[in-house]
């Protein structure tokens, strides 16, 4: 803890002035001027209090030891259990640039247009729980050097030309980043990216004063291939721009062709503002990049609000439909069937996304942690494992939820295009049946959407994080 030289109270890092500030005597001081700073910056370990949530096992560290009364991961209002420890200092840090108030405004603006949001999202008490947290990241420097020989084609008005191109590549990409916490979904880091790695500075615990930090628990090697691929793709684009009009065939092993190598890998802390909301066993996060203000929010829907809003909107649509020249029963069956098929397609796409997300199939950091736990090996990039059970459940749910609708729609289409009864009654009956099925699919869809827009409660009990405290 950084004590005030005037009064001895704890100082915090003030974002607006980018200095250490004492709230008791209003003293300010540049980070480098603090007497403790010279000592701290020379050590590669620093003192922390690690707070652990008794509900989800999530851990946050802080340089303060004041108790905190809610958990940012699971949204629980509990006193977190603190214990003193030592943590390895990361190499680099980007200090907070956006203040709490600025980020609350960004958040309010983002949720403003979400009309079906549960009302707690707009509650000032809830918004006040937004918490500044440093997230651990890996920062990579990548070098590419080598001569490449490429082939490609170019289309002119008369000919298809076959090309041969030779280039010499000498590229440096400094500051490619990946998040180093398995608790933090890779997807969120994609959405709040980028952090401007040019504004990184050497780490000192002074920047943590008044904030929390998440614990680094994903080995940097996990992302090697993904980092190399990212730079290879960028190089592809540069080469493309050198040969306008040509479509170039790139070799399958680009890293070998371009001579891509990771020359350095450093640990860093990047700032985010973090807000979590909880209902039953789901949580929703709002995460704001503390440097740029870029926001990523989970916005679930209040089902009651959604249904009420839909009924209200249905009234003018109904009036509009009755003003139209009479719709024939046969047309109604066709339109209903098209809507039904559309609804089912949305359902299918959503189902797949939810499944991939709940199983973390696209989260390299999470998969690495999982593989490590399973085999006790760390390092190489993991292959996502699909659980047969989870897959089976998705399928059986789908069967229950949309097969009736599929059958009814097929029957309606058969009646409409094959049986073609004279009377309108069978057509209306078909249309009503199809539309009722669609209503049902929509209720399921909204449930699915809420799963899609939220996350399962985190479970960190088996998380190994923080190897360094005693």
């Amino acid at each position, binding site marked *: 803890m950084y004590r005030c030289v005037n009064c001895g109270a704890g100082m915090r890092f003030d974002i607006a002035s980018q200095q250490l500030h004492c709230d008791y005597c209003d003293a300010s001081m540049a980070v480098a001027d603090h007497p403790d700073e010279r000592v701290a910056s020379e050590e590669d370990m620093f003192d922390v209090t690690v707070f652990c949530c008794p509900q989800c096992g999530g851990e946050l560290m802080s340089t303060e030891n004041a108790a905190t009364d809610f958990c940012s991961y699971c949204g629980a209002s509990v006193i977190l259990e603190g214990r003193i420890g030592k943590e390895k200092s990361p190499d680099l840090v980007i200090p907070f640039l956006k203040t709490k108030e600025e980020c609350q405004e960004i958040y309010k603006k983002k949720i403003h247009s979400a009309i079906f949001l549960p009302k707690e999202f707009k509650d000032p008490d809830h918004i006040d729980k937004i918490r500044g947290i440093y997230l651990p990241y890996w920062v990579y420097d990548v070098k590419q050097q080598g001569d490449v020989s490429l082939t490609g084609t170019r289309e002119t008005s008369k000919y298809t030309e076959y090309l041969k191109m*030779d280039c010499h590549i000498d590229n440096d990409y400094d500051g490619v980043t990946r998040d180093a916490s398995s608790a933090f979904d890779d997807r969120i880091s994609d959405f709040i990216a980028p952090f401007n790695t040019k504004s990184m500075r050497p780490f000192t615990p002074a920047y943590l004063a008044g904030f929390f930090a998440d614990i680094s628990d994903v080995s940097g090697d996990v992302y090697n291939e993904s980092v190399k691929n990212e730079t290879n793709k960028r190089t592809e684009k540069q080469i493309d721009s050198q040969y306008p009009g040509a479509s170039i065939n790139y070799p399958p092993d680009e890293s070998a062709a371009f001579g891509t190598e990771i020359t350095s890998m450093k640990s860093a802390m990047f700032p985010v503002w973090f807000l979590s909301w909880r209902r039953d066993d789901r949580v929703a996060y709002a995460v704001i990049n503390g440097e740029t203000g870029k926001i990523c929010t989970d916005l679930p829907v209040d089902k009651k609000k959604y249904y009420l809003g839909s009924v209200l909107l249905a009234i003018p649509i109904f009036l509009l439909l009755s003003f139209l020249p009479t719709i024939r029963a046969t047309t109604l069956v066709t339109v209903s069937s098209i809507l039904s098929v559309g609804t089912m397609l949305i359902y299918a796409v959503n189902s797949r996304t939810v499944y991939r997300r709940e199983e973390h199939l696209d989260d390299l950091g999470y998969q690495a942690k999982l593989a490590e736990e399973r085999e006790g090996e760390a390092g190489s990039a993991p292959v996502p494992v699909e659980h047969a059970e989870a897959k089976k459940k998705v399928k059986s749910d789908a069967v229950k939820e949309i097969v009736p609708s599929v059958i009814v729609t097929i029957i309606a289409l058969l009646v409409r295009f094959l049986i073609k009864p004279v009377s309108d009654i069978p057509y209306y009956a078909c249309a009503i049946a199809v539309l009722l099925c669609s209503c049902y699919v929509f209720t399921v869809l909204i449930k699915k959407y809420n799963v899609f827009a939220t996350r399962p409660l985190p479970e960190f009990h088996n998380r190994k994080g923080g190897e360094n405290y005693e």
Partner: protein
Amino acid sequence: MNRFFGKSQSKGMGKVVILCLLCLCLFPIGVWGEELYGYTYDPYYENPDTGYTATVFDYEDLLTDEEEEKLAEDMEGITAYGNAAFVSAYPEGYSSREFAENNYSQYFKESGTLFLIDMYNRKIWLYNGGEIEKTITPSYSDSITDNVYSYASDGDYYTCASEAFRQETILLEGGKIAQPMKWISAGLLALILAFLINYLIVRGTSKNKKSKEDVLINAIAVAAAITAGGAIVTSRRRKTRSSSSSSSRGGGGGGGGFSGGGHSF
């Protein structure tokens, strides 16, 4: 037209006479009155509850006497909703539509349906008015004539007309039940559309956007030095020219303002 309908003997219904007198009083132009009400006919069947009639005017003699009787029976169901008439004619110089329209206005001031087999234009035509028209809209008339014209092509005029009246009866009788079903399905359709629109709104407003590529690349320090040699053309292949096909569009719009549908046979 008179050629066909002038033969019928006058046995005016009470209502018609009263209305006729009323009209004559209101409109001193006698000719108009005579045009409209001068020709009366002998209905095959008169519905005791509604007073609507079923009549067969087989001027082209397409049906046997027996078939005429049977057809009139087939039309009885319709008289619960309006007048029904079968007409076969050879209206030289007229279109089926004009002919059907003129005859209709001569016979029915109220709800009615007229099925015409036009031997001059080789067309069948269904013309509706009043209450019946509310249920059997022009598009239904089209589908009914679509359904039955093949019988006329085969020369089976009785089945052609009988089937048309049968389908009309089904539509009319179903109309009462279909009406509330129609509103229910329209309501549900509106609800589904509202669900869909709201869902799209939700998806639209909740979307998190990733930063653009140039913002991402700006965030990292890039020192790119690509020395690109010229592209050497190693070979070329002449393109095969694909012929462009032109499609012609046919068809045209239908007319409005009257209520009927027909089909040639």
